[in-house]
């Protein structure tokens, strides 16, 4: 059968982000894959070179809508390393708590997307409902569902009071119950196993040599996690296990993420219960001395690297970002070789390429010149009431 090259994307129904594939197929089998990721370059590295550290932080937080805290923390960490600034313990714990909550929300989101890609939309509905619990906690802590703006150079901007801690712990209890459900689902639900096992195979050796990171690498048995191997914040104090799976397929990546959910919930709980008292920030200098820092962070998608070069001024001479998705693209090309063309969405989704979300709603009546905003609670109430009255659905207590 002759080989045919077909373009998929950059806009397509399978993925929500612009990426172009040129797939060479022989019948239904994929023989080669060419990626075009040039649709989203925003010049953030150049932008950071032209702004001082405080302003850069706002920009860096917006590199990604889902792991915004990962980028902001990693940058702060690097700049603080250049400034030789020791953080108060409480600040490192708060950063860690928000970081782990972010991982929980990101993994729930991924489980839903993966369910959707394999036509298991019930799973999508379940996980995204549960994800709202984390989103609520993040909003209570930071005031935002995305872009939490918790960090500043020298510490954090928001403290956790007793009420917040109590409420977060109550939510975590429910989340822990659900995490058990999803772990069982990933390991024993027949439809999931039938669809994901042996799909998108990535061998242990290839995962290492192609530089895969995060759950993609750990799903192929690579026992590596920045939180343990290059401990930052308070990760050397909080007990946790690095989850790996030897499957090497999409199922392995699912098992790793489901397991990490449970771990992150336990870690957040432990950190909240053992939160050290004291200050949450230290005054920081405006300028960073000459020097270079390579800052690493285990983002929900894997190792995130920032390279920061200081030059005695209030801005970075060079700021380079290596996101986990970038590191995982070569492994996608490898994992799709000789697969079925219908596997493209789930194999690509298995590295969890980033997506953005936001939730505020602003109403505008241009002809009356009126604008008003609803709070999240009001919008949520409205949604629940609307579904009960118009669709007869009662969400009940979740």
């Amino acid at each position, binding site marked *: 059968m002759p080989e045919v090259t077909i373009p998929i994307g950059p806009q397509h129904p399978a993925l929500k982000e612009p990426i172009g594939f040129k797939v060479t197929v022989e019948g239904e089998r994929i023989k080669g894959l060419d990626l075009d990721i*040039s649709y989203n*370059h925003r010049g953030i590295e150049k932008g950071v070179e032209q702004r001082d550290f405080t302003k850069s932080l706002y920009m860096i937080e917006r590199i990604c809508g889902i792991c915004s805290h990962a980028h902001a923390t990693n940058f702060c960490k690097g700049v603080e390393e250049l400034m030789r600034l020791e953080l108060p313990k409480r600040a490192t714990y708060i950063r860690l708590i928000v970081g782990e909550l972010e991982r929980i929300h990101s993994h729930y989101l991924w489980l839903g997307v993966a369910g959707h890609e394999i036509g298991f939309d019930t799973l999508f509905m379940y996980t995204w409902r549960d994800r709202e619990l984390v989103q609520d906690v993040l909003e209570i802590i930071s005031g935002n569902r995305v872009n939490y703006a918790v960090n500043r150079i020298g510490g954090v901007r928001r403290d956790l009071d007793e009420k917040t801690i109590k409420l977060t712990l109550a939510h975590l209890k429910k989340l822990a119950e659900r995490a058990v459900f999803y772990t069982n689902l990933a390991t024993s639900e027949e439809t999931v196993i039938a669809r994901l096992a042996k799909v998108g195979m990535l061998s242990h050796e290839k995962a290492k040599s192609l530089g895969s*990171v995060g759950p993609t690498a750990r799903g192929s048995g690579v026992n590596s996690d920045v939180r343990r191997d290059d401990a930052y914040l308070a990760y050397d104090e909080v007990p946790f296990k690095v989850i790996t799976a030897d499957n090497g397929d999409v199922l392995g990546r699912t098992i790793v993420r489901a397991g990490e959910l449970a771990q992150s919930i336990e870690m957040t709980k432990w950190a909240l219960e053992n939160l050290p008292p004291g200050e949450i920030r230290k005054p920081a200098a405006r300028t960073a001395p000459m020097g*270079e820092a*390579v*800052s690493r962070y285990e983002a929900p998608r894997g190792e995130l690297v920032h390279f920061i070069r200081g030059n005695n001024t209030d801005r970075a001479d*060079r700021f*380079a970002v*290596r996101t986990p998705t970038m*590191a995982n693209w070569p492994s996608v090309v490898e994992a799709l070789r000789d697969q079925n063309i219908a596997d493209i969405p789930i194999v690509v989704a298995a590295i969890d390429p980033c997506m953005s979300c936001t939730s505020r709603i602003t109403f505008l009546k241009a002809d009356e010149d009126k604008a008003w905003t609803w709070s999240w609670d009001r919008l949520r109430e409205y949604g629940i009431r609307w579904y009960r009255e118009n669709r007869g659905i009662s969400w009940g207590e979740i």
Partner: protein
Amino acid sequence: MTDSPAAPENPLVTVIKNDLGPMLANITSPRRRRVVMEATRDSYRDAIKYLQEKMDCYHLSLINGVDLKTSFEVVYHLWSDKNGMFSLRVSLSHDNPEIGTVTDIVPAAILYEREVHDLFGIEFPGHPDMRRLLLSDDWPLGEHPLRKDWKPGEKKMLCLVKSAELKAAKAGEKSA
């Protein structure tokens, strides 16, 4: 906090100095689990192979470029679970920045070298597939936005590039 500068005496610095002494310069350890060193265009490949074989660096974290105005630097960041991060910098001339690819010894470098090529205009002879990666197809040729002398808005922007010019440029890029 564990990221604080500590233990300036990293035993690995001495080991590398003994093994590769004349090939490398300025081997230092700025903090725990970090070693920084400088190589030349003649020695960087041997140094990377040494780090892979002797220091257990299986993972390439990042290759990034730096524009120092009078010269360029390419920095290879290799990670080992056991020994930490090794950053190997190579200085290149500003007029003709060029350094041979490492994709044959580190397959993970394939996208990172393309990124540095896009944004800094540093050439990597021997790279199997040096096409554009991050810049869009109609970005003018020879414009490298992360160079210090490149300012947004100063040069002709995308919309001004005529399609004929672009086609000619593309044909040139392919044959090169």
